[in-house]
């Protein structure tokens, strides 16, 4: 009885699905789907190569410090970094005192209230503060940026596919639109063509636009490519500050597990040895 019902129900599902399939197939043959323009012109991120990639990869502290400078002097004008605190910069190789100075001299101050009057005010940041946002709220951020909200950058490299390479490619990927780009996909006012951006037209003006835009403390030549690479590495760190610990602990754990598994295998063979011997004897 159950089998009969089962076969009937099964036939029902199969008929409906094949019915849908037939209609879909007829449509597919009559009007083959055209690939969206975004797919044709969209490019996958370049791979410039970063020191922190791979199983043994570690962050290049010098590069992170340069990247912080690019973020501080270029990106931070519009993009917040809510999840990172100044104290975290000690991981980049700065001393406690240097971090205090960076916090105190940050272009945006930390919001606070006047202790006497209770009025909204701001104060210089302490190293325990999170990095203050350049805008009071999203509404202000949109209003200042042609209604495009500059996203928070703390997790940017984890929030995009192949994030670190994506950030690098996006920063260096501004070009004139290709001549065969259809009219409706050309950048409108306030938009810029960038083949690495999902819909090809990004509201952010090319942020890194001239050589020497940032003066590096270590004397590295600040080419656009160099700045893009440094800030991408810095954003990889802000997204995953515990990456080095994760990898080094991981190597130890896996080494331990391989030894354990080997011993467990020997023990398993050992305990089963008499059974197997018995089988051989038979």
């Amino acid at each position, binding site marked *: 009885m159950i089998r009969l019902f089962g076969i009937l129900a099964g036939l029902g599902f199969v008929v409906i699905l094949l019915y849908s399939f037939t209609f879909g197939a007829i449509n597919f043959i009559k009007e083959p789907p055209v690939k969206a323009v975004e797919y044709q012109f969209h490019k996958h991120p370049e791979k410039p190569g970063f020191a922190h990639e791979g199983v043994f990869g570690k962050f290049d502290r010098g590069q992170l410090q340069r990247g912080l400078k690019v973020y501080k002097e270029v990106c931070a004008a519009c993009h917040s970094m809510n999840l990172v*605190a100044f*104290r975290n910069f000690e991981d980049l190789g700065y001393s406690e005192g240097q971090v205090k100075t960076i916090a105190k001299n940050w272009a945006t101050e930390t919001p606070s209230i006047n202790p006497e009057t209770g009025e909204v005010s701001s104060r210089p940041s302490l*190293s*325990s503060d999170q990095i203050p946002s350049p805008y009071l709220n999203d509404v202000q951020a949109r209003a200042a940026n042609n209604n495009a909200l500059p996203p928070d950058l703390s997790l940017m490299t984890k929030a995009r596919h192949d994030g670190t390479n994506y950030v690098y490619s996006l920063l260096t990927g501004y070009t004139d639109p290709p001549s065969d780009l259809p009219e409706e996909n050309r950048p409108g006012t306030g938009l810029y063509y960038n083949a690495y951006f999902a819909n090809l037209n990004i509201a952010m003006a090319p942020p890194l636009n001239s050589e020497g835009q940032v003066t590096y403390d270590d004397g590295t030549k600040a080419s656009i490519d160099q700045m893009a690479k440094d800030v991408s590495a810095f954003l990889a760190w802000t997204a995953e500050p515990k990456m080095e610990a994760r990898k080094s602990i991981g190597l130890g754990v896996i080494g*331990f*597990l391989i*030894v*354990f598994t080997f*011993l*467990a295998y*020997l*023990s398993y063979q*050992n*305990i089963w*040895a*008499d*059974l197997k*011997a*018995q089988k051989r*004897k038979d």
Partner: protein
Amino acid sequence: MAEPETTETNEGGEIRRRDFINIAAVSFAGVGAGVVALPLLSQMSPSADVLALASVEVDVSSIEVGQAIKTTWRKQPVFIRNLTSAEIAESKAVNIGELRDPATFEDRTLPGKENWLIMLGVCTHLGCIPLGAAQGEIKGEFDGYFCPCHGSHYDAAGRIRKGPAPTNLEVPEFSFVSDTVVKIG
């Protein structure tokens, strides 16, 4: 199950070597479980953002002589009192030998800034906030602080004089970063 014959026919050394493998595997598993317990336990100790709040700076310029303010440090109340010269003299006159937790007045203040008494407002008995910092509060039998929970009396320098508390009110590490700003912690 048929009797396993092979182990019996082998000499004793063979059996010991084979037992050793089992013991080694089980011990390895035990060590691994022990190491795994570390992060499972250490996660409960204060996190990085909590530790980052371990010091605060307070402007004390508005505290008049004889008055005190309450502020917080590490989520605990801190009393900052601007002592009167009478209170200082009285505190210095106490015979240290009589105290439960002997400490001189100088031990509890900074030289040159001895009018500033800075203490955690946490009774060393079981953690209530003693009265006596704000004006009009009961100051106890020794004209200092009184903990209403279990009746501990502290003197003007915050030293335990009577009641169940074992030690004096704790003086945190502090220093003056300028004439009017004190850094606690």
